[in-house]
């Protein structure tokens, strides 16, 4: 609706009213992010139950302010009642395939806040490198980081990330993925990984974490004790994806263990054996956990409040998986159609936008178990030289899908808004790439 510019006193104040104090706390899965924004002649009021809602409302408010040809800032009379559709709206960054400097992470958190993302899923270590500086096991990063001097996250770095996120209403969920994806843990923790065998002789190559030795569980307990203290969120992501069984199969001690336990040739049972013990350890530390879908697919015994992270995307099977997970009573997170690292030519944001997370056969109770989802930016081909343009504005499509009502799906309208939002990002100093041909009033100056 059009509004004539008001010749009266300009509005100079936005009153922010928060009913429940909580500025010193951390956001959680249960945090209420609803807000109400009223802009009328002579008064602008933002009210929210919690500080987290106020943050969301402030972002919306900032997007409502326009500037006319004379340089005057204006805002239309508005009344907005807003709240997110899904409580878990995340972005995954991978700092193992490539190290990401602290400023890149902090900048990403800023832009996440502009998009109302509220979870930073920090896939902090993996096969290629271990940049997390552990106080309990300093050798892990000393031996496992790409460069122990320059490519690590110190305790102070980690605290900065957590606080920077908190101030933006973003939860930091750390992922220490085991038992697979752990090659970089080996050099700093001798005896942790399974030695692979060539016949009767160790080949010199290592595989997943060794599930049959007690030292493994001692190590894991101490590490997660530290991780539980360092990361304040209730949830930890424990990984559990893509465990390659070939190394376990080659190891004679493990084969003996399989026999002893009566697992037969089913190494999924061995994987479950490990994961179950891990889950118990983490539970006893007072944390909840999120796991990749394999943990569910392989029939591991899980706590009822486990969150299953659905990521496999072969021929839209993910919707079936979402149905299965929720049917079994578990909460689910969707990432499968949102692997933003899988770039392709053209406007791929549209496919991401069109995803409907609840488009599966299931009851209302089942669908209520879908907590939300995460856009993933795996790091095999991504580092600070291309992170920001690859993330934005594409991730914005996922953000809207997770925040807005299911009925908000018109692609043409979304294009117009996202293209304008991209220009806003440029104005805010974010190196977001173009959606399609055109220009912004404030172009990026180039590097």
């Amino acid at each position: 609706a059009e509004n004539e510019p008001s010749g009266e006193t300009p509005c100079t104040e936005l009153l922010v009213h928060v009913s429940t104090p909580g500025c010193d706390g951390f956001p959680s899965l249960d945090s209420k992010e609803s807000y109400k924004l009223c802009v009328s002649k002579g008064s602008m009021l933002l009210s929210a139950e919690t500080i987290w809602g106020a943050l969301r409302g402030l972002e919306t408010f900032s997007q409502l302010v326009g500037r006319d040809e004379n340089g005057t800032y204006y805002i239309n009379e508005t009344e907005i009642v807003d709240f997110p559709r899904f409580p878990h709206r995340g972005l995954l960054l991978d700092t193992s395939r490539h190290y990401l400097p602290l400023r890149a992470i902090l900048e990403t958190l800023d832009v996440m806040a502009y998009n109302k993302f509220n979870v930073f899923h920090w896939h902090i270590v993996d096969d290629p490198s271990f940049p997390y500086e552990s106080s309990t096991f300093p050798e892990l990063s000393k031996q496992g980081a790409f460069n122990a001097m320059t490519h690590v996250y110190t305790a102070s770095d980690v605290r900065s990330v957590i606080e920077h996120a908190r101030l933006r209403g973003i939860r930091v969920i750390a992922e220490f993925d085991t038992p697979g994806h752990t090659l970089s843990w080996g050099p700093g923790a001798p005896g942790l990984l399974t030695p692979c065998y060539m016949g009767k002789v160790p080949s010199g190559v290592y595989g997943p974490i060794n599930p049959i030795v007690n030292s493994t569980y001692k190590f894991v307990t101490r590490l997660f004790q530290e991780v539980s203290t360092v990361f304040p969120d209730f949830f930890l992501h424990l990984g559990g994806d893509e465990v390659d069984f070939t190394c376990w199969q080659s190891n004679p001690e493990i084969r003996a263990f399989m026999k002893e336990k009566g697992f037969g040739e089913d190494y999924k049972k061995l994987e479950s054996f490990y994961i179950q013990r891990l889950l118990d350890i983490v539970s006893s530390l007072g944390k909840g956990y999120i796991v990749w879908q394999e943990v569910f697919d392989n029939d591991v015994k899980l706590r009822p409040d486990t969150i299953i992270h659905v990521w496999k995307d072969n021929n839209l099977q993910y919707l079936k998986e979402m149905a299965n997970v929720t049917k079994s009573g578990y909460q689910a997170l969707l990432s499968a159609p949102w692997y933003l690292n899988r770039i392709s030519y053209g406007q791929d944001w549209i496919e991401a936008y069109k995803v409907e997370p609840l488009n599966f056969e299931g009851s209302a109770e089942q669908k209520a178990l879908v907590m939300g989802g995460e856009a993933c930016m795996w790091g095999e081909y991504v580092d600070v030289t291309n992170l920001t343009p690859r993330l934005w504005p594409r991730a914005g499509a996922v953000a809207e899908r997770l925040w807005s009502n299911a009925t908000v799906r018109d692609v043409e309208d979304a294009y117009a808004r996202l293209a304008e939002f991209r220009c806003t990002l440029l104005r805010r100093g974010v190196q977001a790439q173009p959606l399609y041909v055109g220009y912004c009033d404030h172009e990026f100056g180039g590097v």
Partner: protein
Amino acid sequence: MFGHSLRRTWGRRPLAARGEPELFQLQVVIEAGDPGCDGHPQLTSSEAYHLTVTEPVAVLKAPEVWGALRGLETFSQLVHEDDFGSFLVNESEINDFPRFAHRGVLLDTSRHYLPLKSILTNLDAMAFNKFNVLHWHIVDDQSFPYQSIYFPELSDKGAYSSNLIYTPTDVRLVIEYARLRGIRVIPEFDTPGHTQSWGKGQKDLLTPCYSGEQPTGSFGPVNPVWNTTYDFMATFFKEISSVFPDEFIHLGGDEVDFSCWKSNPEVKQFMKKQGFGIDYAKLESYYVQNILDIVSSYNKGQMVWQEVFDHKAQLKPDTIVQVWMANNYAHELSSVTGAGYTAVLSAPWYLDYISYGQDWKKYYTVEPLNFPGSEKQKKLLIGGEACLWGEFVDATNLTPRLWPRASAVGERLWSSSNVTNLQDAYKRLTNHRCRMLRMVHLLVWLRENTATTEELSVQWLYR
């Protein structure tokens, strides 16, 4: 000649021990009487060089300055750092020259405006990769950023906005910055299609489309039947010929949509008069031939996209045909060279077509001469161009999208045909990528620590 690989003899003596030999000087000797420092690089310029690295003085010899530039780049790549921060270079003797003479990168400044900084950074990156042609696809449907001296309305009305233009000074800066790096700048003013933005500032240039008897209000390609079209083009290309010093101008000629011409009564009448029947390709060729004549008269050679050849226009003997359609491009190369025309290959190197994973490998494994043809024909393939069309590219993502993927094309066009080992290429390319990052950081620092634009230009120009 094409086909000889560079011969490299590595010295036996590693420079590590006490009393190690030191390199005090790199002497650069240009052998030609006129080294060419004040001139512009050309298709026929020599880029060969001979580099001898030995203590205490290394010698870089080249027939022309362009070879010296290539040799300097190679020398800079030979220098490496040890763990203690000392700079080392192995004794070497290198005899090097490019396999193909035309090694280009296409940038598109119409789908998105590219600020000067971006273009200049990419000229530097090109030089690091021994590219020697910037194919500047400067205008197209979406915007006309080129500020014309004779027709200022073209950019006044056709640019995205008044500050998103290239002034004559900007253009001169690009040309000079390129020249100092041995890079030719070939501008492309693509007609008769891809010209929507031209119509904003030049009335009665584009063909009015019709629905029955009525003009619809929309416009199609350049109108080939009016004399005013050719008057305009004659003046316009006179300007382009003097602004851009390269011997060649790219005239485009791709993807002409005939539907608007077909709808226009004057055009239909012209077709009848000319006896073209309903073959609009003939009309396109009629137009293109006229433009080729105009540009020839200004003593410029022409490059065209393959459709111009495919639609049987009468080309000049030295017209270069750029093969871009991916479908069966080997067959097209045979046809073009079989008809006696010079060709440049881009079809397998559309770098704007991004995909997940290490796609540089597919660019690297292209063998340009893998097409049916005689030795004589193969000599007519003078090189290729990596194209970065701008639909989804601007300064926010250009550099990481182009590099180091374009480096794969750069090596394919410079090095001998037997340099094909992917594992070895991967090792060298990852190293090269880190090196390019260091160089770009240095250049950005230089830029940010420079006071005036004058100083800036000078600093940039002389790196």
